[in-house]
């Protein structure tokens, strides 16, 4: 951490400007529920938790949003799904799932009742539509992380695979 005011500049109007670059590491202990979900991704398996009302949450909820009870019932869902909502990212930044333009999307996987946030490698924004079918593109090296799904990609009409899910 360097001193705060060593490299400031003075603008023509007399105002002072100094850079503030904040880099800060975090880690997560995810607990038993997300641990099972992430371990499943390593094995190309997507699992969610089933609430008291029968809804399947993917990614899994640790506690039932309705009752607050710990979620203990699991359901495997498909690795394909439908885009519920999306937003185009024309200028990816470091750490984004893709380093060329892509869509952030909420994706409801087949068999799930909630949506998962991930990137869709659609090439161009006009290739994106709400309701479009997408499938997971698995990373070659998987470590038990959400990035074990490298991204999602559009399912072309000629390549529709049977629906997965429970």
């Amino acid at each position, binding site marked *: *951490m*360097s*001193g*705060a*005011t060593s490299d*400031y500049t003075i603008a023509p109007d007399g105002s*002072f400007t*100094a*850079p*503030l670059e*904040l880099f*800060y*590491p*975090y*880690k*997560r*202990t*995810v*607990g*038993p*529920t*997300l641990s099972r979900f992430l371990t499943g991704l390593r094995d190309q398996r997507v699992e969610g938790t089933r609430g008291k009302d029968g809804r399947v949450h993917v990614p899994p*909820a*640790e*506690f*039932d*949003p*309705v*009752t*607050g009870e*710990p979620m203990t019932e699991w359901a495997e869902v498909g690795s394909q799904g439908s885009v519920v909502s999306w937003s185009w990212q024309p200028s990816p930044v470091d750490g984004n799932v893709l380093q060329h333009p892509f869509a952030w999307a909420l994706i409801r996987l087949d068999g799930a009742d909630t949506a998962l946030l991930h990137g869709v490698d659609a090439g161009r924004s006009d290739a994106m539509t709400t309701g479009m079918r997408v499938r997971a593109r698995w990373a070659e090296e998987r470590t038990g992380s959400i990035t074990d799904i490298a991204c999602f990609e559009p399912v072309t009409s000629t390549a529709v695979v049977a629906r997965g899910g429970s």
Partner: protein
Amino acid sequence: MAERCAVIGVGQTKHASCRADVSIAGLVREAVDRALESAHTTMTEIDAIVIGKAPDMLEGVMMPELYLVDALAAAGKPVFRVHTAGSVGGATAIVACQHVTSGVHRRVLTIGFEKQSDGNAMWALSVPLPFGMPVHAGAGGYFSPIIRSYIKRSGAPGHIGCMVAVKDRTNACKNPYAHLHEPDWTLEKAMESPMLWDPVRMIETCPSSDGAIALVLANESIADAHDGPKAWVHATAMRSEPTQFAGRNQVSPKASEDCAADLWRKAGITSPIEEIDAVEMYVPFAWFEPMWLESLGFAPKDQGWRYVEDGVTEMSGRLPVNCSGGVLSTNPIGASGMLRFGEAAMQVMRTAGEHQVDGVRKAFGHAYGGGSQFFAMWVVGADKP
């Protein structure tokens, strides 16, 4: 107060440097389940939830109260978030208390937590903002000059900090939830502990902990009907002041003195050392025990260190301070203030187990935060106020 308020449930987690077995939600839930059990109640009977933690940057989860709604079974219930730096646990309990004393809610759950292993609190608190005074090397670097100022002003001998530290670390061994269990400290050994920020030695410094605490607060009719131990809230007080201003007394900030004076007045206490039977004081660096004894009115100016030296603040002393082991033994920052408030309540409820002091009728809980600028305090008692 329109309504009386009592603590009818206290629950805390086992505190540790890393609770790798749980998520933030799981950590919070562990404390909540224990608090609800001791209050003989359930989530469905809770009217509102008041939750606090230190700055969100510590874990990098922004507005975690939203993510925690599931774990708190809070869907459709009022959830109130409190932010006041290190004093937040105390401030949160006070806000929760006001939810009851105002007559708005009958039974309120309040929570303080921190999962410090998810980030690095020392550096999160030392961001070098342009054109501001740099706070190098975390809270210890900030507070050590203030401690030096106290030592110079009061003439305290150099071993007082170590005496406090050995007391608190020894007390912590009687508290199964405490983070540090280090039974073998002696004053001689403590004096050889490495110097981190002169005059603060390593043993005189709080750890970094993962932990949570929850309290169930209830109005008079529910507390009367509760067939378990309870601690009545006699008075609460909060004060704040800026970090820097000309002439500021950083050893005994005016906000601290004003907050204590307001608290004693509201609680009808004229001599704190005579009338308070147990103290849970926010002491993240050992020297703050004598400093706060003076600032809060337990000891005359410049005499706080003598109380430490004479054993007044030992568990067997006239004014037991931090029988739980205090912040020096357990420091999940956002929970630390509420731990002081909850441990004070436990002394009144006689549920403190091995670190229970005999015959506690009134106890004092204390929290401070920021650059010694945010203060929250309460007095709880066995009798109705």
